[in-house]
């Protein structure tokens, strides 16, 4: 597709269940970012992939959060044993990342997660 796509667009789950959020970046973009947007915290960076590697996972809020990227393309963010404070919009962005942070990050529409 022409832009970054994310699925599902909305997810309602019960506390304690696991969820998987998917991101399809723009074709050819080597860098992929996950962000979380919540009322209390605003927009916060979670994790960055260059190719299939995530050199720094320190932005993930807890060990219940994990992410992977396969084939240098699709990425999955998994939240285990969801808590109500995980309710937020999860945004994915990709860029060509030719040099540091110069490149424009293109954002997907987000996945709205509600944990009941």
């Amino acid at each position: 597709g022409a832009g970054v796509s994310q699925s599902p667009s909305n997810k309602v789950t019960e506390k304690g269940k696991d969820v998987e959020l998917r991101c399809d970046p723009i074709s050819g973009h080597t860098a992929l970012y996950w962000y979380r947007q919540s009322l209390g915290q605003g927009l916060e960076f979670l994790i960055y992939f260059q190719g299939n590697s995530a050199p720094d996972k320190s932005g993930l809020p807890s060990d219940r959060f994990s992410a992977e990227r396969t084939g240098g393309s699709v990425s999955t963010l998994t939240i285990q044993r969801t808590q109500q404070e995980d309710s937020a919009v999860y945004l994915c962005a990709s860029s060509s990342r030719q040099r540091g942070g110069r490149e424009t990050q293109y954002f997907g529409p987000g996945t709205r997660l509600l944990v009941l």
Partner: protein
Amino acid sequence: AQSVTQLDSQVPVFEEAPVELRCNYSSSVSVYLFWYVQYPNQGLQLLLKYLSGSTLVKGIKGVEAQFNKSQTSFHLRKPSVHISDTAEYFCAVSESGWDYGGSQGNLIFGKGTKLSVKP
């Protein structure tokens, strides 16, 4: 570490009036500066970015921003707003990359400014 402060959480303005959205940043290293816009239930769209060179940056949708290094500010301006400009605007910084792999390039965002344009 970097931080971004957007001084106004909400800005109401009448249609066709000018508007300025304020942004200040703090960083111990060189940064790149960005303004993004978010319409309801949508992702973020880049309006403009400052990497280097001229401190007055022009972007899409008729906006411009002035980078002021001494005041560590990057305020966004639009000379005449329309109803369709109603949205949330985010200022962001990223650590400038010096070599491939030297910077992740992740964005640090301000809390956002909700622009409400009234007829």
